């Protein structure tokens, strides 16, 4: 039995959302304010609901604002529908199904859906409403009808909150259900983010208490301790006794058939004495948990909860941000642990299905490894590196006040790669998703680039294009995909609102057998390129850009686009070439003929040889034509590729130098090359697209 789906209407930032879950582990990921904690609260409402729960802030205020006219006539109502699924084996008679027997949803003819292996899939649906007592509808209309604007309306609504209550309903019969009946379905443990880490969690305490309840010798132990106290402190009691002895008679205590006897009585609950002690593994000394680091304690607590609860049937475990206070390495371990559990569970699940139909008294207890369902929220990108992609549910909150649109979108990453076509991509992705790359799962906009240089420079380029990377709204993630094709990442974004901008190199080959090709072939190459795979052609949220000004990679394109500015070009060349070449660069113009004619002035023989070799094929073509325009292009490409070949292996350094090397001749002033650089057209166009809402 597990919680399969929730439909949420008008609750907090969920105006109208559907979130699907799976049996076992669910890791809910998403940026801040996406609604992760609210989602956990939604689940928690299945078990823990108080009369006083519910506030004006539980309503979706966007909805109240946009539909104010409607709500002046009818009261707003929060509606949550829970879908539970249970695989029923008619030969087993455990009490699972009894927990929700009154909420079973049948097919139209009163039957059940039978699954392949002889068991039945049973659906149960429960609706929870936060609604106004129908008796007060007229009062409601009276109170809110004159509200001007949302603010006034909210104030009026607040007056009626005492008349609001949370009620469960059977969706088939539309009849109210007793709260106790719903609470019986799942036992929910909710571990909020603001937990105390220096003490035992109440859940652990409860577990210890339960174990103590099962322990039979409690009464005897108490009496033994009392005896110990009495024996050890007998001298004290003896003194006390003497002290009060002669007075008793005189004030009349003895007259009442009683005598006062000083004594020690142990009468305490044992669970309060339970605690974890840390033992130093080398020297063996002990230390209380309190003195331990926050993060480490947190890990102990979370680990405790998971292990204690894992074997409990019909238990939902909700953990908010387990990574709190944890070092990334520890986070990695925690999620690795969850992922290992998951694997073991998959195995046991398989075993269970195979044994189905021959359940006997002996093997009913050999069930799943994870009997409960675990929900974990996180915004740690470490998890993606460690946890299973299939367990992740991504939540994102989109708002557009202008279009009056707001919605929470949930996506089960499992579904993203369920298509067989993407099987290979999934394998790649799981291999290459490390902490930095995982960041894209939390972003509203993503830029995929091939190399480190683009990644480093992108923020500066964006600034030049008037996009602020840092604003929450923009939460843009730049991910360097390196060697692997970005198509493996794209399924993640199919059908979402996340804008994905990919910059890929056109990788044009300038030479045919060491002879420089006619540049018209560059156009042909661009035209023949298929920038985006068929599977993504229809996705308007995915855009691919590549070089278009004779460059084949980011670096040489950047160079070409800035070629007119000779001093910038010289700076760029100096950043990648050996120092011995710098006087040469400074001395003459960046011109093919100039360089060719002055080669001899290069001091270093090795460098001289290299430069000569690099220039040679271009110069040949250059001299064999009279077309001035063609000559200019050859010149550009020549220097761009010279730059590229020197930049090879130090692209990261180049980017850092562009950003942070002070090139000002005046030491008191700061001047960086990035300030002079023109953003390559293809990048600029891409960023302009990304800027769109």
């Amino acid at each position: 039995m597990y919680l399969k789906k929730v439909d949420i209407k008008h609750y907090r930032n969920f105006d109208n959302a559907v979130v699907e879950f799976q049996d076992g582990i669910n890791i809910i990921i998403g940026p801040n304010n996406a609604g992760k904690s609210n989602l956990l609260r939604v689940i928690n409402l299945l078990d823990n609901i108080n009369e006083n729960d519910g506030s004006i802030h539980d309503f979706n205020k966007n909805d109240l604002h946009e539909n104010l006219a409607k709500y002046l006539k009818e009261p707003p109502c929060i509606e949550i529908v829970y879908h539970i699924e249970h695989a029923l084996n008619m030969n087993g008679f455990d009490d699972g199904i009894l927990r929700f027997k009154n909420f079973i949803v049948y097919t139209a003819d009163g039957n059940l859906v039978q699954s392949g292996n002889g068991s039945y899939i049973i659906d149960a649906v429960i609706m929870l409403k936060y609604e106004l007592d129908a008796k007060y509808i007229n009062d409601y209309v009276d109170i809110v009808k004159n509200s001007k604007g949302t603010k006034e309306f909210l104030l009026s609504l607040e007056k009626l909150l005492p008349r609001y209550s949370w009620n469960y309903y059977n969706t088939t019969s539309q009849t109210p259900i007793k709260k106790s009946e719903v609470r019986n379905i799942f036992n929910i443990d909710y571990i909020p983010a603001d937990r105390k880490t220096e003490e035992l969690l109440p859940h652990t305490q409860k577990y210890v208490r339960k174990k103590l309840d099962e322990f039979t010798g409690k009464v005897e132990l108490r009496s033994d301790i009392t005896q110990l106290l009495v024996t050890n402190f007998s001298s004290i009691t003896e003194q006390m006794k003497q002290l009060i002895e002669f007075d008793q008679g005189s004030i009349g205590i003895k007259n009442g058939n009683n005598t006062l006897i000083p004594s020690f009585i142990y009468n305490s609950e044992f669970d309060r004495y339970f605690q974890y002690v840390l033992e130093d593994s080398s020297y063996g000394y002990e230390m209380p948990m309190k003195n331990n680091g926050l993060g480490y304690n947190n890990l102990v607590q979370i680990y405790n909860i998971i292990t204690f609860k894992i074997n409990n049937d019909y238990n939902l475990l909700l953990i908010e941000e387990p990574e709190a206070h944890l070092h990334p390495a520890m986070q990695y371990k925690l999620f690795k642990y969850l992922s290992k559990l998951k694997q073991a569970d998959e195995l046991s699940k398989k075993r269970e299905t195979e044994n189905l139909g021959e359940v006997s008294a002996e093997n009913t207890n050999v069930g799943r490894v994870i009997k409960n369902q675990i929900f974990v929220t996180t915004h740690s990108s470490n998890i993606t590196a460690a946890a299973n992609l299939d367990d992740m549910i991504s939540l994102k909150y989109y708002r557009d006040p202008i279009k009056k649109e707001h919605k929470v979108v949930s996506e089960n990453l499992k579904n993203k790669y369920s298509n067989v076509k993407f099987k290979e991509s999934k394998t790649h992705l799981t291999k290459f998703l490390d902490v930095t790359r995982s960041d894209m799962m939390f972003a509203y906009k993503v830029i995929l680039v091939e190399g480190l240089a683009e990644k480093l420079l992108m923020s500066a380029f964006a600034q030049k294009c008037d996009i602020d990377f840092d604003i929450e709204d923009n939460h843009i993630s730049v991910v360097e995909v390196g060697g692997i094709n970005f198509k493996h990442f794209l399924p993640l974004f199919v059908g979402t609102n996340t804008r994905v901008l990919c910059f890929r190199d056109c990788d044009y080959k300038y030479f045919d057998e060491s002879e420089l090709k006619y540049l018209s072939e560059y156009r042909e190459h661009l035209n023949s390129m298929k920038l985006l795979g068929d599977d993504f052609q229809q996705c308007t949220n995915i855009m691919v850009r590549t070089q278009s000004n004779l460059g084949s990679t980011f670096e040489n394109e950047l160079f070409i686009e800035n070629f007119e500015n000779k001093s910038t070009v010289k700076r760029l060349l100096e950043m990648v070439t050996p120092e011995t070449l710098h006087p040469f660069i400074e001395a003459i113009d960046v011109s093919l003929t100039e360089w060719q004619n002055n080669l001899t002035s290069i001091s270093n023989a090795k460098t001289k040889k290299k430069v000569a070799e690099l220039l040679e094929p271009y110069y040949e073509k250059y001299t064999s034509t009279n077309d001035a325009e063609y000559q200019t292009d050859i010149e550009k490409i020549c220097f761009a590729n010279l730059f590229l070949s020197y930049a090879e292996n130090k692209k990261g350094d180049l980017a850092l130098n562009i950003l942070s090397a002070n090139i000002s001749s005046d030491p008191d002033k700061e001047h960086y090359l990035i300030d002079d650089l023109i953003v390559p057209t293809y990048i600029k166009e891409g960023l302009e697209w990304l800027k769109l809402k």
Partner: protein
Amino acid sequence: MVEVEVIHSSDNLHIYNDDRHLKIYAGPGAGKTHLLIENIKKLVQHSTKLQSGFRKLLCITYTNVAADEIRNRLGTLNQYVVVSTIHSFLNEFVIKPNQLQLKEIIKENFGLIIDKEQKLSSVQEGFSTLSGHKKEEIHQYFELHYPEIKTEQYLELSRTKMTEVQVGITSLNAANNSANEKISLEYDTKKMDLTLAFAIKDYVWNVAGRLSFDEILYFGYTVLEKYQLSTHLIRCEFPYILIDEYQDTNPIQNKIVKVLSEKECIVTVIGDVAQSIYSFQGADYREFHQFTLDSKLPIQNYVIKGNRRSTQNVIDFVNYLRYRDKELNEQTCEMNLSSNEKVTFLLQRDKNHFGTPLESIIDRETVVLCRKWSEVFKYISNVSEDQQKLLNDISNAYSFVLRRNFETELESKREAWIKSMIMIVELEEAHQRRCIPSALKVLDEYLEINSLLHRFTEDSNQLLLKVMHLWGFVNQCVQETSLLKDVVMKINAEMTASGLSIKSMLKYPLPGEEEYIESVYKYIDKLEYSSAKIITKEIYSPDSKYMTIHKAKGAEFSHVLINIEPAPRLDGKDCNPVDIICDPFIFDDGNGLAKYEEFTRIIYVAASRAKDKLYVHLQGDEETARKIDDALDRYCNLKGKGKFYNFCFC
């Protein structure tokens, strides 16, 4: 012959071993309830299946009274047990949760589409499936939905006739029938045709939303048989099913038990074939006699021979009545060893008069058990000879004219004149005690009083004064008027004149009205109020000493007088009470004594209610006494016993 192990009512039967079903023969006074309670305790303590808070033990009793009794005795154990009659159980656990399935069955078997929103459930006890629905509403429904039916076909039709239209379960009840047999509606073919019968059923189900008791059984069984999940849920929830009074079980109930016991459920049935007296409701003791289940587990038989209730003499008499029984022909006295009172046969010489007043013979505490309420009238004393004769006539009129189910009508006070009679007597009594709340409680059923009490206004004060006045009038009236009928008429006239808002008038059928049955009311019309008052006090007071045998089932009393005279419905020759006493047949062993045997069992049930002293009231003289003495003496000799009986003439 089946193997039967003798047990004691305190024994732990280890039901929780889950390795067999149990069938327990337990005679009267055997301590069945004690056995039930003890074993429920043991089950709750030991069963691993009941450790889950969701799984419970199901205990089915025959009456709500018995269910209450068991619940009271279970105390805190109630949280682990559902105690219920088969009807309430089916209603709560099968009918109500499976509405969709129920409607599907109705559609398939009867072609009626029941509205999605309508909720079908059992009719409440003491009400009919059409209670609260006016004839006009029903007629309107017919006009709207069944225009093809001519108005005159139903215009004269009484609601009683309409409620009689039911799913016929007789064929399903025939022991070896399967559910596949076509089930149809049963109705009075003289009063209506099939189309109208369906229209009526359509109204009852679709508008009133009520199922009759037979229909609860039928649909309960059909749902369980057809829908696996509903059966599975019951099996999950109730791993143990204990059923009391199984001899009175309906064959459908037996089928339900069979379905459930196929898997998981452990069934325990307790009963006494000799106490099966509900054949008129479809019960068949053979269901217990030949109890089988479709289960892999065996059924183990037990018998409790001890009798913890009666004296040896009473036990001797009841043993005598069932001496032909094979499983339990001899109970032994376990507790009541002190009293030596013999069983007394009271022989009444004159059919219409007591020669000696009964009070002078029998103890004041003696409870009188009759087969029917109408027979009780014969024991009403302190009325004039004319009125005594009149009561006899009324009683005979009910027996001979209104055969069908009249006892239950009378018992539930639904007969109009009885209801009015009780109301007037209560008002008069309240007046004597000057008790305003009692009076208001009685009057509230007839007048709009509650609203007057809500808020004090001058108007309501005036109206309340009028109520008080009416009350005074009733008291005045009963002093001055002799006939019950006239009292009712006068009160009704006064009520109408008072200007109070009236909920309902006192009911008393007049010639020409639907409820007026001439052959009965020609006597009732002559009933004096003073006699009516005596009847009411004797029969309907909470400490009434009169009771029907059916109602007394399961109860016990120190002193009991049983009336086994006459048995007018039975063939006089074969079923003379004296003959039964002289040659009791507790079962029909294929000797064609079907009526005879049930009557024997009724005597058996009645006689076994007595703890200390039993009177058997018959008509007869010395000759009768001699016959009886011969028969019983033979039995005593055979068993080597002294005489446990004597005779007394009255």
